[in-house]
């Protein structure tokens, strides 16, 4: 309470005097208030001493900022990066770096084993902080996040986890894991494959190597022997050609595309029967989808890239 100090008492006395001169509705209050305060009698002594030597100069007591209840003259920003272009972003980076420095000694796991997280995308992050953020800087921030994410999940501190969740996209897109395909009650496994414009669905059952494509035998469906070899490549490369029967439906594209789409579909269906074949099939090239498609033709070009012959005029 300000008026317990000598200075405050002085002020109070002044205000009493002023109120006597200009009577108002609330004027009686300080008087009664002063009279009611019991400590006033104890303060008498101080008051008396001050009156005794008023000429003596004393330093003002220290300002107590904790009780400073009016606006200061100069507003001090809470964040030190307030005067930079993107304070919130820099704060985030600083916070992450501080965390990383704190937790750098903790054990990490390889990136492949770290829990998969969907970080905010750049546009989302810009909305989140409401500041312009450069792509490269954001990427650097992502590196920090990924490094923090690699801390062994068993020892990761709670503050890191809470910090990381701030940068996650709402709703975890990686939480949904489709059920692994299984062989159905009839012993069939299905796989789909695509190549160029063709898409194939293959049903693989245990059998003795009969292959039907679109209801036709392999020889009728693919007149070229090379295409037949590619269509049955998944079985051939894993030496399972005489152990499974294949029923494939393939649509679109030409013969080569169709044959290779069938190969992919058969490879995936075969993995349902025997998941252990995956490394062999990957080596055989029937796991990875060839995403290449025909490049579109552009205006002004004769084909996708070809330009008309240069003519002087």
């Amino acid at each position: 309470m300000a008026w317990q100090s000598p200075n405050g008492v002085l002020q109070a006395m002044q205000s009493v005097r002023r109120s006597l001169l200009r009577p108002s509705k609330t004027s009686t209050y300080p008087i009664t208030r002063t009279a009611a305060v019991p400590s006033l009698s104890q303060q008498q002594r101080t008051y008396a001493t001050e009156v005794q030597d008023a000429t003596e100069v004393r330093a003002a007591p220290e300002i107590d900022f904790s009780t400073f209840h009016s606006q200061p003259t100069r507003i001090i920003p809470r964040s030190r990066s307030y005067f930079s272009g993107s304070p919130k972003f820099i704060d985030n980076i600083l916070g992450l770096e501080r965390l990383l420095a704190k937790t750098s000694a903790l054990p990490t796991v390889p990136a492949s084993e770290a829990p998969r997280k969907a970080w905010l995308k750049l546009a989302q992050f810009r909305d989140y902080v409401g500041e312009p953020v450069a792509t490269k800087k954001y990427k650097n921030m992502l590196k920090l996040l990924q490094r923090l994410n690699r801390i062994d999940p068993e020892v990761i501190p709670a503050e890191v986890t809470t910090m990381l969740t701030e940068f996650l996209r709402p709703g975890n897109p990686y939480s949904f894991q489709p059920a692994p395909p299984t062989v159905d009650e009839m012993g069939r496994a299905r796989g789909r494959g695509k190549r160029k414009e063709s898409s194939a669905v293959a049903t693989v059952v245990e059998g003795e190597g009969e292959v039907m494509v679109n209801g036709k035998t392999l020889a009728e469906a693919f007149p070229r022997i090379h295409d037949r070899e590619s269509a049955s490549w998944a079985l051939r490369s894993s030496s399972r050609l005489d152990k499974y029967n294949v029923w494939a439906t393939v649509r679109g594209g030409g013969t080569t595309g169709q044959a290779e789409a069938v190969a992919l579909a058969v490879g995936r269906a075969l993995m349902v029967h025997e998941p252990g074949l995956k490394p062999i099939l990957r080596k055989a090239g029937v796991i990875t989808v060839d995403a290449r498609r025909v490049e579109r033709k552009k205006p002004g070009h004769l084909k996708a890239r070809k330009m008309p012959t240069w003519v002087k005029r």
Partner: protein
Amino acid sequence: MVSSFCWSCLTRLPTPRPLLSAPATIPRAASAAASFHTSTARAFPMPTKKSRSLDSGPKYRQAKSARMKKKKPTDKPRPPPIGERKALRKRIVLSNPNALEVEGMQDFDADTMVDSHLHGDVLGLPVTMLDQLRAVQAFKPKQGWSIFRRPGTVVRRETLEMGRLFDRISGDGADKGKVVKKIVTGPKGSGKTVHMLQAMAMAFTKNWVVFSVPDAQELTLAHTGYAPLSDEQPDLYVQKDSTAALLSRTAIANQAVLKDLRVSQNHPALKTPVKEGTTLEDLTKMGIRDPALAWPVFEALWTELSATSPAAGFEKSFKPRPPMLVTVDGLAHWMKNSEYLNMESKPIHAHDLVFVRHFLSLLKSGSQNPTLPNGGLLLYSTSASNKPSLPTFEVALEQLEARQAGVNPSSAEFPQPKAYSNPDPRVLEIANVSKPASAKEGPVEVQTLGGLSREEARGFLEYFARSGLLRERISDEMVSEKWTLAGNGVIGELEKLGKRLRVAAQ
């Protein structure tokens, strides 16, 4: 009026000298443009300007366009003589001296063709039979006979079944003199033609008479002459040359059988009466010599071969007739309009050609006697590579198969032509076969040839390996791979895979 001008005097005129002769040398001073430094000009000749045709002013009376160099006419190689290209195209090579001789390969004979131990093996065709088989054109140019040392065929399940059938028809059992009628179908390269070749080889082994139409299309392509059969039947057409060719094939291939058989019937259709004691070979040769007589001779020959007893007066020299094998390849071409035109320039249906009509009538059941009274086998095959689009014929085949499977023709499952598809009633008629009156006659069956089994495929690929064509180990895995690649063991595809040159990766 004779000209008074003396031509001979003109030729004697001396050659005129040119009026303006160019000077031999141009003075150097004139050629130099400016002779300020005469000494250098004299010492070095002025560089001559390259003269271009348009530089020195327009040239009149000369062509200004770019002059094309005339090509000298090169001596073109003369085209090969007429018929040589076709002969080359139709040439059949049955032997390849570079191929290895397969040791221990057995020949096709009466014992081996029914021996089930040989199932899956390749049997060689006897050398003595090759001429007969060539005569009936059992070999086709595009078949791969020329890659092996000698021709051979795989003994597949159908072959063994057919061998047993031949045994039963020729033997003395209950099936003696039976008539079996089959339409052979199957996918491309499944061995339909070779199946017929095996049938012919069996027939020659058993001393049957073989009639063969190696290419049904040739009769409907309008490549041979045709004429109305007679004034009474102007809508029927006879093909003399084709019939003569058929007689010639039959005579050469069956010479051994025909020369022992003698005429036993009266043939009023033949202008000259046939003497008693004439062999059937001689009768056939009459038709070959004179194509105008070919059709009546063929009819006479057919009557003779299907005779079960001699006519009056011919009893002395009568011998029982052997069973017959009739093969037709490419049956579908007989199920549509031919390329021939009638008097009104309308297409003639193939069934209106007597030749075709005769062979198709054999599919129908005989009224009392079987169509082949002495027994025999009809093998008519379709072709998958040379196949006209004939929905009606396909439906007819489906109907035959349904009958064979015991489907009631009045039931809903019985295949019918599509509504509004305008089916050919004459084609549907072949599927509409009444139940044979005679117990000796079987109904028309449809036999579908598929792929080989794995054991047969293995035997076939081993034959390639032993001939030195396939340089791979014949393992189970390899056989099953080829079997799958060949569309479940289609033999034509297996052959392609077997003879493909494979170079091992370095």
